[in-house]
């Protein structure tokens, strides 16, 4: 209830503030943020129900009690909405809220096992920014085997055999998902080709959108690290490093998928975080999304290390980076290295966040294993 009130309050406050400033067409971005938040909240509720259920069936009452205490969906939605990064992105009329909406829409669709919706979200998100393509793995896992659960082998332990319902991987749904995805992709491409007929057709569109993303043509400074690297790199190495940097994202996809296959939502969060670190034109809007999604796992990540360190680091770098930009571009007394230093620090903090959240999720699973077996001593 409290969360809803706060959300309402924020909604009115922001709509009042923004309706004075922006025109109607820009409001799409602003509504996109709210729909995203509502969807995140729904995902959180689904996740929580599933979590409590599986914990009860495991008999880990300690964990299920804390899981009931904290409404993960509300927390995640509020974190997403109140995040200064979200507000800044919204005020800057960036289109990343719409990309975020599409990503969250596909996740929501997969959580509810609404196959057409999930496929639509995925197709639109990857149409808009290409990187969400890698989300196909968590989506397939979600659709095939359902929401996040503790590792399956825990259920197979002899003393918990009674509570365990065997959930099969439903290939039928996955095939359906792929069918729907290809239908939506075809549909989008046909629409694009119709609207681009007067210009140069689809080939030009791919070159200007995906080509632009993949070949890092625009080297204007952003919060990522690639612009600096590709401004420095020799031209004859450029293609090589382009491949290296893009393979970098793909390298992590498979190992993570194997290790975290039982928690597809968390896997999706990790993928989003990694791609927002390594993508060619990152923005704070991407960070806003994964920070919001982080709130979904608040119960599992209760013992996350370095949380205060990360908070201070994020705050410090995010305040420092506009000042460095000002020093370099407007005052002319600094140089590109000043700004790039903050970009590097930001990337480091993001990496620490991903590493720590993954390791504390794995620790959580280990603790569940101990907590579930009545003989073993509970550790904190």
């Amino acid at each position, binding site marked *: 209830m409290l969360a809803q009130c706060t959300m309402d309050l924020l909604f009115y406050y922001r709509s009042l503030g923004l309706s004075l400033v922006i025109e109607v067409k820009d409001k799409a971005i602003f509504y996109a943020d709210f729909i995203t938040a509502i969807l995140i909240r729904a995902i959180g509720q689904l996740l929580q129900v599933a979590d409590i259920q599986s914990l009860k069936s495991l008999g880990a009452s*300690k964990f299920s009690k*804390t899981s009931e205490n904290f409404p993960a969906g509300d927390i995640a939605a509020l974190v997403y909405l109140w995040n200064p990064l979200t507000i800044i992105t919204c005020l800057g009329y960036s289109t990343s809220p719409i990309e975020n909406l599409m990503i969250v829409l596909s996740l929501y669709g997969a959580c509810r096992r609404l196959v057409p919706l999930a496929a639509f979200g995925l197709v639109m998100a990857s149409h808009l920014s290409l990187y969400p393509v890698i989300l196909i793995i968590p989506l397939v896992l979600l659709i095939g085997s359902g929401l996040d659960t503790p590792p399956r082998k825990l259920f197979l332990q002899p003393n918990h055999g009674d509570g365990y319902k065997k959930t099969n991987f439903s290939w039928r749904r996955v095939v359906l998902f792929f069918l729907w995805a290809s239908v939506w992709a075809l549909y989008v491409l046909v629409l694009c080709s119709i609207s681009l007929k007067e210009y140069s057709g689809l080939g030009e569109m791919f070159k200007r959108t995906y080509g632009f993303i993949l070949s890092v043509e625009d080297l204007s400074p952003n919060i990522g690290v690639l612009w600096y690297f590709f401004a420095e790199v020799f031209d004859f190495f450029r293609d090589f490093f382009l491949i290296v940097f893009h393979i970098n994202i793909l390298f992590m996809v498979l190992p993570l998928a194997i290790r975290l296959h039982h928690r597809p939502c968390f896997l999706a969060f990790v993928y989003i975080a990694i791609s927002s670190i390594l993508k060619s034109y990152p923005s704070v809007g991407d960070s806003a999304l994964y920070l919001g999604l982080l709130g979904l796992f608040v119960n599992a990540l*209760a*013992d*996350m*290390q370095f*949380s*205060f*360190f990360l*908070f*201070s680091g994020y*705050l*410090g770098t995010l*305040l*420092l980076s*506009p*000042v*460095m930009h*000002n*020093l370099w571009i*407007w*005052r*002319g*007394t*600094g140089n590109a290295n*000043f700004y790039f230093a903050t970009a590097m620090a930001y990337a480091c903090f993001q990496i620490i966040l991903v590493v720590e959240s993954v390791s504390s999720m794995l620790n959580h699973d280990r603790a569940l294993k101990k907590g579930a077996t009545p003989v073993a*001593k509970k*550790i*904190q």
Partner: protein
Amino acid sequence: MASTPETEGQKPKHRPIVRIGIFIIAHSFIVSVVCCTAGVLALLLLPVLAKKTYVSENALMPGSAIPMITDQDVSGANNFINELTSLNSKSQSLNIEIPRLIALHMANLGGEVSYHMFQNQPNKFHPLHFFTSTDTEANNVNQTCESYATNTVGIIRAPRGDGKESIVLVTPYNPVNLSPNETLSLGIAYSVFSLLTQVSWLAKDIIWLAADSQHGQYNSVAAWLKDYHTPSFGGFGKLHDDECHISNDIIEMEVSDTLRRAGTMAAALVIKVANTGEAGEQDALNIYAEASNGQMPNLDLINVVSYLAVHGQGLRVQVDKLVSLLDSTWLKFIGEVFETVGKIARSVNPQWKFGISVKEYVEGSATLVSSLYNQALGVPTGSHGAFRDYQVDAITMEISPKLFSNSKGRQTELLFRGGRLVEGVIRSVNNLLEKFHQSFFLYLLTSSNKFVSVGVYMIAFLLLVAPLPVLAASLFSDTIKSYVKSEKNQPFKSWRWLYPTKTVFLVHLWGAIISLLPYFIYQIPDSQPTSRLLIWASLSLFILIVLGSFFRARSAEWALLKSVTVSSAFIGLCLMSVINFATAEIGALLLVPMCLMTKPWRVAGKVQSALNLVLVIIGFPGATFFVVKSVLGFENGSSLVEFWYWVESLWAWNSATYIYICMVHLPCWILCIYILLHPC
């Protein structure tokens, strides 16, 4: 029992970097004491560590050409000065006559002349001006011809240039009350201008701005720069009434009312002549360089000027220094210590040359303190400050003759010297192919030919603030450990910091609110400075109480609260060190001991509590202001009024220091008091 070997077994798992971190955190007290002492020591060592300046950009080649200024130029300048002086004694409407005379002479020399008319814009309060640009809206109320001031601008087009770059000469003068030193500075500019119209080597256009400083020297230059950089469509002259224009029918020449432009500015020189005689044997040249928010022009510009002044014209170059520090005994004592250390070091190894004499040290520190103070205030020291807002390197060169006399011979000598100096600087800058970029932008001067670069002074600052994150981490980990021991089953142990963070955030929000209050206080008509100050103080207190009672903070652990406070202070200080180093350094000297020492009085011993109390009292910005004033021996006016005017000047000049005080220093001060009074 089972968990003990397990935790021991886990210990070697830590990565080396984490182990180093744990080691440092475990010895946080020693680290804090050592780092703080080293930081203060490094600050005191800065005059010793200062390096000699050198001209870094090869293209400048100062003094490689023989000065070309001739008797003809100087005698022309003499005539010009005589005409100005006679006009000054005769005429009534000086603020029209003098620009006209200057324009006439400029045109006769062969320059393109235009007038630039502007109105005085009173300084307004823009708390966020640091990040935003100046707003261009002019309030066109109650315009009279009298309220306009007229800058006269003469431009020489470079015979060898493409008109894309220019060098600016500025001579501020007050037409209502023209003093002899201002006429002399106009004369110097005239002689240089007269020479430059004839030379063939010019590659950059020359702009001579005779700035009408009846509304202040800074304002006239700033107004001209703003119009120069704002594209105006449909003619600049349309803004003004026709009556206000200086009619140029009488004089048969072309004076344009539209603003004439040359290229982007490579450098700007403000030429002034001091009206007080100098006591020394030589004529002296004072260099002023500080622009808004502690920004400095490129060091190469200062190097060129001081090189040419010393080696070319035999002037004694000096930089502003705090005179009252020259006689201080403790500074002399420190200087003697460093001198002896230097001597001992030299006797051990003759190659170590870091000792300097006591006199040098004291003078160096006096200059350094003044340099720090001027940068920390964020108020420009002259009209050159206006140029820095447009990324143009500019300095003020103030020539102070040893004895000021109106005798003809002395005047001619000064014209020669000043003219040659300016000519040499222009010739050097003229050689530049790019903007000034080779040398330092971030430096502190310890004398006219010695500087401390950013790489050196940052060490002092970083040593000073390094204990903050260490202390925060040690407090944090101690609290978390105590949680682990006391209540085993409580989850979210590592998220406990969220409650104190809320408190800290609220106090910083309060800081942001009170930094905006003066804007509203100014809406109250007819209030005295003292009453304004009291309204501000009482409103701030009221808002603090309201915020505190609305969002009643759960009485968090003081250690966690201190940890969060210390980290916020660290972030704030680091941020400020990038914006304005001098403010951050002075702020760190005040904040760091206060933040490190503070402890609830029930926990701390009597001595520490007393020390905390003293630190907190000194840490309040108002108290600091008075303490510094009395220590450095400035004269005391009515204290509260003086303080109000000081704060007023900070926000009138859009100084980032004001924002720092309100949004970092004051909140940390409040939090320290809160911790001090914490009931535990």
